[in-house]
């Protein structure tokens, strides 16, 4: 797990429901072109640095896909 990132997706758990995308206040979550082994287009954040570590996405995610880290 890349501890440098603010927001980490366990993409194999992601079911591509898009709920996280709708709650991100800075709108940086998008769905990948690729599918995971279950056939789902998973969620990803490309511009990690824009993330404000608000945790909204993790709060909303029904599949406990997301971990969020904050600068201490």
């Amino acid at each position, binding site marked *: 797990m890349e501890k440098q990132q603010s927001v980490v997706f366990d993409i194999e758990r992601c079911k591509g429901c898009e709920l996280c995308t709708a709650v991100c206040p800075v709108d940086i979550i998008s769905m990948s072109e690729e599918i995971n082994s279950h056939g789902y287009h998973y969620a990803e954040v490309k511009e990690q640095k824009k993330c404000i570590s608000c945790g909204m996405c993790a709060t909303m995610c029904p*599949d406990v896909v997301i971990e969020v*880290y904050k*600068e201490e």
Partner: protein
Amino acid sequence: MKKVAGYPDSLTDKQFHYCPGCTHGIIHRLVAEVIDELDLKEKTIGVAPVGCSVLAYEYFDVDMHEASHGRAPAVATGIKRVHPDKFVFTYQGDGDLASIGTAEIVHAANRGELISTVFVNNAIYGMTGGQMAPTSLEGQRTTTSPFGRDVKEAGFPIKMSEMLTELDGSAYIARVSVHDPKHIRKAKKAIKKSFEIQLEGKGFSLVEVLSTCPTNWGMKPLDAIEWLKNNMIKTYPLGDLKTPEGVE
């Protein structure tokens, strides 16, 4: 970097079998987080229902008992009476709790049974493929109300939580929703409060959580969230319905 959101301790690492976007998963996480926060993991016995959350016993990393359909409150009563010093909760759907299990939940509440119930109301029978639930909304189309629920024939969306407030044994009854992060946080607070009510020996507690069923509502997950917000809450108003201090 400090972790501000992550995987709760009281969940196994088994992936949920729920459909994409099904908010059962959110509610599972909240329950696990509260178990973590109250340090209950080693004194909890959870009771899983029959419904989409039947496999809850695979997810909560605590002692679990899979009940028969609707009877989770009776099973929980049996457990709690044997282990009065342990924490016992049931996790039940609306078919389970508001239909077949009506008598069991009413009497557990009336006995002031020291158990906590998480009542997931998604206005439908998810597991069996989308039949009408007693909580389905007026006009809602389901496989057994294909022309929309006709309240004259099929009855009204049942207000279990309101009904349970009338019983002297219920100490805390609340209705919450998980359609956005703000409400999710409120939901968690209510669940925590309900668990504390049990720990304090105040009586029966129940949190009704409005939840989605994108699959059987026939909607995309995001649309389901909207439908919950715009339709369900109208019929099922949110808030604390009864607290140890009084009825709302």
